């Protein structure tokens, strides 16, 4: 059995993923032979990075090459611990952090709630308390008075060396921050919060974060306007092209309004939708026009991309993006912002940024789930549920549901328009993460995708297959409604990896696509049963 203190000890590999030991998937997914071959790390990655946690790399931080570099790394890491405990540097999360550091009873009540730990066959390294307890011992020893002596007395002595630091960093990217464990904790301790604080230390002190979240994520968004790299002119051209697509596909004549001052609604999509799932912004446009809503999109910096990757790893990046998004709304003088189908964007803007915004920037922000529920139930759209006569289940994005309590509106819609709607078990605030949470859905460097599919997404896949166990035949087309861009990204890759479309005929998509598919104004079905 792996012990916490093993983290500091040199070893080629602390643990490894053995598919045979993992939670089995139902047939035809139960054989391990059918899985795609694992991605091999390049010789360069092996030589430069430390993959000794579990053989996978998410961040791939370069190993210090000299003793001096190692000492420098340790010194800066310990300085980062001090900043985490400083009211100046960490006022935003200091209370949550200290409460979770100081009040864990080590009772392990939370561990079975973790879909990663259980799916892995209860691998100790993925136990939610493993990382927390390791971090707690490091903080107690290196950032508190008398820590070194107490660590020895209590038998909780962890040596901070380069191996410990590199493994701790990788370990912080083996948790999707879904907070199921926090829900189960009787003390109110939050392992996910501790994980986020570890990520924050690395980003804000050591400038180390996954490239997809930082350089190609929040930095890109603040520089060009969107983490996709889409500049305003390009995004406007793309949406114009999508308006043409709508015309061609449905005969509806729609011109997406841009930068319309005084509109009732500023709609902000996750810009990833525009590139990867254009049918989603198209469906939004069809619904809003059909319902007669006064709406607009913004071409301002961050005004057309609701993502906020800082939520997962960096307070400064988080705050910068959150403020710029509402500044775009303020400039247009809209009555409210409606957030498209993106879970973390909901939480970032409506919850975490709430107290950060000065009064003049506190533009009301509403979920598209509620907004769409009101449109659908008001009767403003002519809908025929018979058009959605196929099995549908609903995935609850953690950020929108467990962390915001938006549970019922999307269900009210599905119950009204999908006669074969069925729930997953468990669902609502007790849902399982898709496995792409906290940025994982956009992270594909090194061999991290293999871990994401084999471990992180396993519980969700099992749950989806079980929801459709009465109709496993691939000829019966089925739909997983995932009203979140990151979750859809995970489903696309996960389904592709396991061949779910081919073997089970399960498609994933958003909520608005189902609404438009039920609209009687359209001659042809909106949903194209093609996997992409």
């Amino acid at each position, binding site marked *: 059995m792996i012990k916490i203190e093993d983290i500091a000890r040199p070893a080629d590999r602390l643990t490894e993923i053995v598919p045979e030991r993992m939670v089995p998937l139902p047939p035809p997914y139960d054989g391990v032979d059918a899985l795609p071959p694992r991605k091999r790390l390049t010789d360069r990655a092996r030589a430069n990075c430390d993959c000794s946690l579990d053989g996978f790399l998410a961040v791939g931080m370069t190993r210090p090459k000299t003793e001096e570099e190692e000492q420098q790394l340790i010194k800066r890491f310990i300085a980062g611990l001090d900043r985490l405990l400083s009211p100046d540097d960490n006022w935003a999360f200091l*209370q949550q952090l200290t409460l979770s550091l100081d009040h864990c009873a080590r009772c*392990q*009540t939370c561990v079975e709630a973790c879909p990663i730990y259980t799916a892995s066959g209860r691998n100790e390294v993925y136990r939610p308390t493993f990382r927390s307890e390791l971090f707690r011992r490091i903080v107690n020893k290196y950032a508190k008075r008398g820590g070194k002596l107490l660590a020895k007395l209590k038998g909780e002595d962890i040596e901070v060396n380069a191996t410990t630091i590199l493994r701790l960093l990788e370990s912080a990217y083996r948790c999707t921050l879904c*907070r199921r464990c926090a829900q189960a904790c009787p003390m109110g301790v939050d392992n996910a919060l501790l994980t986020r604080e570890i990520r924050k230390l690395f980003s804000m*002190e050591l400038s180390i974060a996954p490239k997809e979240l930082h350089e190609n994520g929040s930095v890109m968004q603040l520089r060009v306007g969107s983490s996709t790299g889409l500049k305003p002119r390009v995004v406007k051209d793309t949406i114009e092209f999508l308006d043409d697509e709508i015309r061609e596909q449905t005969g509806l004549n729609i011109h997406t309004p841009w930068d319309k001052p005084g509109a009732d609604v500023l709609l902000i999509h996750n810009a990833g939708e525009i590139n990867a799932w254009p049918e989603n912004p198209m469906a939004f446009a069809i619904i809003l026009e059909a319902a007669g809503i006064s709406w607009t999109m913004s071409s301002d910096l961050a005004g057309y991309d609701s993502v906020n990757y800082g939520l997962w790893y960096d307070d400064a990046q988080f705050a910068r993006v959150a403020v710029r998004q509402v500044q775009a709304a303020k400039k247009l003088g809209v009555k409210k912002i409606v957030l498209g189908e993106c879970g973390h964007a909901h939480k970032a803007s409506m919850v975490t940024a*709430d107290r950060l915004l000065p*009064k003049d920037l506190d533009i009301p922000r509403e*979920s598209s789930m509620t907004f769409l529920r009101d449109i659908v139930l008001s009767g403003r759209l002519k809908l025929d549920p018979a058009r959605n006569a196929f099995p549908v289940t609903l995935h609850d994005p953690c950020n929108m549901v467990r962390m915001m309590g938006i549970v019922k509106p999307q269900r009210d819609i599905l119950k009204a328009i999908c006669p074969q709607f069925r729930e997953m078990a468990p669902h609502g605030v007790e849902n399982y993460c898709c496995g792409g949470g906290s940025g994982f859905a956009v992270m594909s460097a090194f061999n991290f995708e293999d871990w994401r599919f084999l471990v992180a997404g396993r519980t969700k896949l099992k749950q989806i297959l079980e929801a459709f166990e009465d109709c496993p035949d691939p000829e019966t087309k089925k739909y997983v409604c995932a009203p979140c861009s990151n979750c859809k990204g995970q489903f696309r890759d996960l389904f592709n990896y396991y061949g779910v479309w081919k073997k089970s005929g399960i498609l994933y998509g958003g909520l608005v696509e189902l609404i438009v598919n039920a609209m009687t104004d359209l001659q042809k079905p909106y949903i194209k049963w093609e996997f992409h």
Partner: protein
Amino acid sequence: MPPLTLALIAAISVFLLGNLCRVVKAMLMPVHLRWDLYPIPKGPRDRQRYGGSYFEETEWWTKPIDTGLGGEVAFMLKEVFLLRGVFENFRALWVWSLLLHWGLYVYMVSAATAVAVSALGAHLVFERTLLLNAAFAECVDACTLGGIGSLGLLATRIFNSRLKGFTTRATVFNLSLLAAIFGTGLIALFHPNRGMLIALAEIVAGRHATGAYSSATVCHFALVAFFLVYFPFTHMTHMYMKYFTWHGVRWDDLPARFDEGGRRAIAKNLARRVFWRAPHIHEAADQSWAAVVSSSGQLGKTEHD
């Protein structure tokens, strides 16, 4: 003043002061950003049942927000007295944990009853006897429940595969200490001449003579005194710190537009200096959070057109 009385008074003082310091420290923490976690026991009952929030309402900012504490108190009572979370998530631990917790609660009641005895006038013989008998019964129950609970927990912590890798020296020490307190309590209670509760009543009244009590009684009170001094420095303060972890963090869902005080406190926080050293944080040295947020980091000019 007799030494045992003195020791108990000193221990209780440290206990109160230590716990007060922890509470004050938690209260003086800077106002933090929201970190809600549902279900939150607020709002209409049918919504609470599935974990819904005010965000489900159309234009939620135009509707009244439920700030009532009724739901929170009801939830917390179940948590404190029935250990709901452990019951639902770790049944093997729950039985022993429940016994230990109830042992502690009943012990506190019996101690309070014995203290009440000392407050009664000497002429109220019937009332004194009645209260002492009640305290005796309570204390027997408490020590039995607590003793079984702490030993059961200790065994579970050591032998249960889910727990053993995470059972620290401190955990073993804490549970052994509690087992010793309950064990010595039980022995002291049944001392033939001067039972532990009479001793407590006398100690509180400052009337006992050194050496007059059984060694089990002295040992018991010494352990209790040590526990009281030790308690504020352990995670066992979760007993009351739950107020902060639950009410102060995960249930703290009051929107800023309904909390002007909170907004002002955050504005003050934004004036704090930032010392994080990653290059993307600062455009200039010694910046405030407000300056950092309005900057783009060391990114140069934006390419936004």
